């Protein structure tokens, strides 16, 4: 087993990996940029080393610097988390070359599945059904028009080198194709340094359902159930759940077996996720494979009882999976809210800044994977994910009611967050009946604003707010000793003057004490 693992990441996932290391008795090493000196992953690690200026390219994406730290501190393994260098085949190879075990798949599988066009070619070979379209980069507008005419509009243009919505364009007719293709290629070039674009049939209102797999380095591979990730805004997931309300055990078995075929075709080891698009007829099509741990892994952990990060580490250390597919049991239902520092009144624009107050939920069925704490300043330089709030219950309804209760306990001041969005989603009819697709959230946000609380209720609350505002102001102006809290403390403690002084001005009390000295 490893003695020391360097975590090449930050924020909530940095903390997540550190926790797994702690539980396994492994020393954890954090790396931090200039703005992350007080980040929770640094505060919680056994060792910490600075790696450069705030910008990701200078720090968390700087493979050379990170490997240098690994060498200096004597780490024997590296966990890349998600994002940053986690799907960078060159970096994975550089780790191997430096004698550092990369906790994840081989550079070769990463390379194969990392390029969306290459992945499609391999899936074609493996006989895996995927969304009809091109498996190679589009060479010309003419070719694009030919393929599009063949598969039928609407079609989706996509970047081969990456995701997150960059380089994606929906094209509904032949006239739109040329300008869309040019825009798509330009965007892909700027975002990934690779302008390769391919084309797929656009499935109307698909559901995004992904399958988690785990493979050791001895060829044993299992699937751990699916996750429903259709609640997205601009192709970024916002709320995920496991299992999917659409998937029954037979469909799970079928999707799981396709996922295993994909993993084997890729020679895959460690944790990975196969993404599918599911149409209205429940047909599922291979979309792509993510060759890393995903943000939403907690929902799978909760329904299977397995610690995925722990298994990632064990697999990388050469251990064989001690369980088989038949031993993987799914129990209960889990749902995750991604809490972002975003301004919902301003198009979800990132809202970095100092967290002046943070009240977090707890209690039955609530898990919080957080990357913030009260008093910390959320930097602008990275993805503004603050925390993942996960609700778990014996069924979907209980998971929802626990999450709703937890959201009521959750309070953040100092920055704007998307907390209010989850209250809306978790009260909405279609969501509650499991009737979602990838267009769901845009429709909800584009629709009518929710009715404000009943005007009489809000009026009553406004009166209370007025009273509270005045009380706060009165307390601001008063010397500390006269606050009610101090008063009740003093009455209870019975020191010297004791109860008789309750309610007396602090000045008078101090004067009395002085006089009696």
């Amino acid at each position, binding site marked *: 087993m490893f003695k020391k693992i360097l975590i090449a990441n930050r924020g909530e996932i940095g903390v997540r990996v550190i926790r797994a290391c702690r539980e396994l008795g492994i020393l954890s090493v954090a790396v931090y940029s200039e703005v992350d000196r007080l980040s929770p992953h640094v505060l919680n690690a056994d060792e910490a080393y600075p790696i450069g200026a705030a910008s990701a390219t200078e720090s968390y994406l700087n493979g050379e610097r990170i490997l240098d730290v690994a060498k200096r501190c004597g780490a024997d393994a590296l966990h890349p988390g998600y994002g940053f260098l986690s799907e960078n085949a060159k970096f994975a190879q550089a780790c191997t070359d430096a004698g550092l075990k990369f906790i994840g798949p081989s550079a070769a599988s990463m390379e194969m599945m990392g390029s969306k066009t290459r992945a499609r070619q391999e899936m074609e070979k493996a006989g895996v059904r995927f969304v009809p379209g091109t498996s190679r980069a589009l060479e010309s507008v003419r070719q694009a028009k030919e393929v599009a005419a063949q598969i039928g509009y609407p079609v989706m243009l996509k970047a081969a080198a990456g995701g997150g919505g960059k380089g994606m364009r929906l094209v509904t007719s032949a006239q739109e194709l040329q300008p869309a293709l040019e825009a798509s290629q330009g965007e892909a070039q700027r975002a990934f340094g690779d302008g390769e674009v391919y084309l797929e049939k656009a499935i109307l209102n698909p559901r995004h359902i992904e399958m988690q797999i785990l493979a050791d380095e001895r060829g044993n591979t299992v699937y751990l159930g699916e996750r429903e990730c259709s609640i997205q805004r601009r192709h970024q997931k916002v709320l995920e759940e496991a299992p999917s309300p659409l998937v029954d055990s037979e469909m799970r078995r079928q999707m799981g077996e396709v996922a295993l075929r994909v993993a084997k075709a890729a020679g895959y080891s460690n944790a990975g996720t196969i993404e599918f698009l599911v149409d209205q007829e429940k047909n599922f099509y291979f979309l792509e494979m993510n060759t890393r741990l995903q943000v939403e892994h907690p929902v799978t952990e909760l329904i299977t009882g397995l610690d995925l990060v722990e298994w990632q580490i064990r697999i990388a250390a050469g251990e064989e999976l001690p369980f088989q597919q038949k031993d993987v049991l799914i129990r209960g239902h889990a749902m995750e809210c991604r809490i972002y520092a975003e*301004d919902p009144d*301003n*198009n979800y*624009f*990132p*809202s*970095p*800044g100092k967290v*002046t*107050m943070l*009240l977090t939920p707890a209690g039955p069925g609530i898990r919080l994977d957080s990357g913030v704490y009260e008093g910390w300043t959320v930097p*602008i330089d990275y993805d503004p994910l603050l925390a993942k709030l996960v609700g778990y219950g014996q069924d979907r309804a209980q998971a929802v009611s626990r999450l709703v209760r937890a*959201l*009521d306990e959750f*309070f953040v*001041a*100092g920055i704007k967050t998307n*907390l*209010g969005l989850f*209250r809306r989603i978790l009260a909405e009819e279609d969501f509650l009946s499991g009737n979602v697709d990838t267009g769901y959230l845009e429709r909800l946000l584009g629709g009518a604003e929710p009715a404000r*609380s009943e005007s009489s209720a*809000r009026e009553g*609350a*406004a*009166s*209370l*707010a*007025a*009273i*509270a*505002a*005045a*009380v*706060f*102001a*009165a*307390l*601001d*102006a008063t010397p500390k000793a*006269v*606050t*009610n*809290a101090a*008063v*009740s403390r003093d*009455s209870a403690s019975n020191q010297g003057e004791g109860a008789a002084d*309750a*309610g007396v001005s602090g000045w008078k009390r101090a004067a009395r004490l002085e006089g009696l000295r």
Partner: protein
Amino acid sequence: MTVYNVTIDGTEHRLELETAAGGWRCRLDGREVEINAVLARPDFLSVIMEGKAYPIKRERVEADWRIWIGDQSYTAEVRDPRSLRGRKQRPDHGQGARQLVAPMPGKVVRFLVGENSTVEAGQGIVVVEAMKMQNEIKSPKKGIVLKLVVAEGAAVNAGDVLAIVE
């Protein structure tokens, strides 16, 4: 009794408060209200009113206060006629004038309205570009644009004043 003039979401209220026997005596707009209010921690007030318990938080938002009751928030301005402190806390340019500040570092792309225009609360005043996205900064209140403080093309930092609306 100390008198406070409190404006909640634009509506004015008159609050009379005094400490009494370990608690508060309170009159809201002339009406006597019985409250038990204790500060649990800075900016967190536990209020019990007619038996109902309310955890009420206070948040500073630019030059304003926001009072949170559950998931609803209310903008609050408190003026204590007796002390200067209430007024000094807000960097004001005169009665009712409000500053429009940049929420993050960026560049002023263009102004959407000119000086002396009348604007509604929430109306876009200036567009600031930051992190490759354009962000419309909105007026905090209904009023008149007194002054556009920065020029188009200027680089701004978080907290820099962009305009003043009265």
